[in-house]
Structures are given as structure tokens and as C-alpha cells.
């Protein structure tokens, strides 16, 4: 049996037992899923402090929605739909402007032209959308600061962030899990 099938049947079995109230199976499932989710998100979004939030939010979402899993169906589509949705949610909720303008001006700004190592989904976006998303959501610059760095208006940055998140969700949903 391949790893894929073995994981599938093990996770499905644990989740079914967790639905019946088996704490041991539940702990085993979540313990195994945490690093899987972290690796999955890092491959798609790149290494970021946000990944830890996404992993924990995903575990909580799995907990909230565990009753909705149908043990007669494959577990992966259910699982990764929750993870994708929660990760996009975390990105969307991520406040901009964590870095003050003066601090940002003094800070060493990473090179926007550098390839986003491992961030496959972000790399697939157009440069305009990706830059707006990376500056505001991953690196924590304010909209104003991001607009200055990109040489565009603040409203255009907001539009690009919104479009970027929407495209990210669409691409992610259409990709096979």
C-alpha cells in the first residue's frame, strides 16, 4: 500500500474514532496532521511566521468541523479544503501596518525581485499582485508604506491585495490535493 493510501486510511479511521469520542485516536490524528499541514502550507506560501498561526487555526477548524466528515468518503478533500480555507482566512485577517513607517524606512527591505523560495502559489501570481500581498500580508508593511515602495497609490495596493487573495483562493481550490 502506498504512503498516500496508508495515510488516507489511517487518518480516516482515526477521525471516525474521534467522532465516537476516542481521545487517543484524536490525539494521534492531530499530532500527525500538525507537521503535515505545516509542510503543505510552507510549500505553497513559503516560510513565514504566519504558517504557525495557519497550522493552529487549521487544527481548531478541524476540531470545529469534525462532525461533518463522512467516514465513507476520502478524508483528504475534506481535510485540505478546511486547511486551505483557514489559511486564506488567516492571510485576509492579517493586519497591515505592523511595521511603523519610520521603522520600515530604516529596515532592510527584502528584495522583491528575489524568487519566493518554495512559495509556489504566490510565485504563480502576477508580479503586481504578489508584491502587494507579500509586502502587506507577509512582511507586515502598512498600505501606505507598501504604496510608497511600489510607487503606486494606496487604493491600488488595497485593490491588488484583494485581487491577490481572491486569485490565491481560486488557484488553491483548483489545485489537486
Amino acid at each position, binding site marked *: 500500500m502506498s504512503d498516500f493510501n496508508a495515510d488516507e486510511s489511517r487518518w480516516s479511521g482515526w477521525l471516525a474514532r474521534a467522532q465516537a469520542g476516542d481521545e487517543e485516536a484524536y490525539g494521534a490524528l492531530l499530532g500527525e496532521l500538525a507537521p503535515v499541514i505545516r509542510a503543505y502550507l510552507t510549500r505553497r506560501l513559503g516560510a513565514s511566521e504566519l504558517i504557525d498561526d495557519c497550522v493552529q487555526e487549521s487544527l481548531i477548524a478541524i476540531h470545529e468541523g469534525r462532525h461533518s466528515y463522512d467516514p465513507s468518503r476520502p478524508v483528504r478533500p*475534506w481535510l485540505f479544503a*478546511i486547511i486551505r480555507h483557514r489559511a486564506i482566512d488567516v492571510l485576509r485577517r492579517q493586519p497591515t501596518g505592523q511595521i511603523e513607517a519610520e521603522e520600515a524606512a530604516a529596515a532592510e527591505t527584502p528584495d522583491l525581485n528575489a524568487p519566493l523560495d518554495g512559495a509556489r502559489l504566490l510565485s504563480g501570481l502576477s508580479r503586481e499582485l504578489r508584491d502587494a500581498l507579500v509586502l502587506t500580508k507577509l512582511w507586515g508593511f502598512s498600505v501606505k508604506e507598501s504604496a510608497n515602495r511600489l510607487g503606486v497609490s494606496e487604493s491600488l495596493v488595497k485593490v491588488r491585495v484583494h485581487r491577490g487573495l481572491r486569485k490565491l483562493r481560486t488557484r488553491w481550490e483548483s489545485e489537486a490535493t
Partner: protein
Amino acid sequence: MNDAELIDALKRDLKPSRPRLSLLLVGALWLCSSVLWVSGVGLSLGPMRPGVAESLAQHPLFLLEMLLGAGAVLTLAASAFRAAVPGRRGRGLELVGLGLLVSWVGFFLLGDVVVVLEPSMLGKREHCELEAYLLGLPPALLLLVLQHRRYPLEPARAALLGTTAAALLPALFMQLGCMYEPSHILTHHVAPVAVTALVLTAAVKLWPRRRARV
């Protein structure tokens, strides 16, 4: 809190969950009960339009229009139930449902060009608009409750699909039970579909979502 602490907290919060009926069965039960409700209460409030059976048999466009409406209800309701479970959402089905709905409404928008039935006041119900709202509300609320018992990742989208399907049922009933005139249909039968769906979707969007306490 690190991952291990979170997992421990989630384990402590674990409670057995009751087995759920299959989505197909729940959807079928919802559809049957809603159709029974709309037709039963609708007929108790007033009769069908005289000659409606002949209209269906003798006017293929009217039959097609009814089939498009019924198809829209089925596909939108199926999409709504699927959208309530992670990983089951089908964009294709949603698009088909939307296409059927647009085609159905198209018959009334183009009523002057495409004459399905000769417009007439025959069978007019005095309070058809109010009936459309009242008949559509219980199926829509029931569907929202059934969705809420699953785990819709996008509650507003799921609600919009479901409430549209539910509110379409009385609109379809009025095609058989009220006068046939395209502008009347748009303002008195179709408009309540849009209003019901938008108001209930907005309510779902504003409704605070329960989060697990860890």
C-alpha cells in the same frame, strides 16, 4: 500555546458527535417536505390556474420554462447541501444551477419577444406576492438550519445557494397557480426570490460564528 498544548486542549474538548444522515438523504427529505409544504399550503390558499394542465401539454415552451425552473431548484439545492460540507463543493454544479436560473428568468425578461403563454389575468391570486414570501420562508430557514448542522466553510455562499433554491419553490408554484404575465411574474413571483435570498444571506453573514474554546 504550542502545537502540543493546543492538541491536548482539543483532545480535552472532544465530545462524541452523533452520526449524520447522508447529504443525499437529507437533501431529498428537505426537497420532499418543502414541495409538500409549498403545494399543500399554496393550494389551501387558492386553486391552480384554470387550464394549467392543458397549458403544460399544449405549449412546449411553457413546459420547458417549468423544467428549467425545476432544474434550477434541484441543482441549486444540491449545490447548497454540498457547500455545507468541506471538500464537497462543486463549482460545475453551481454554474449549471446559475445557468438554469438565468435561463428561467430570461423567459420573463424577454416576455415581449418570446411569448410562452398568451398573457392574461386568468387565475390571478390577490396576495400572490405575500404568499411567495410566506411559502418560501420555512423551507429556506429549514435549509439554513440543516447547513448550520454541518460545517459550511463559506456560510454566506452556501446560504445564498440554498435560500435561492428554497425561495424558487413558491415562485414555481405561482407559475401554475397565479396569472401568467411576464412583468407580473417578475415583480410578484421572482422578486421575492431575490429579496428572501439576499436578506437571509445577509443575516447569515452577520450571524456570529461559534468558535471552539481552547
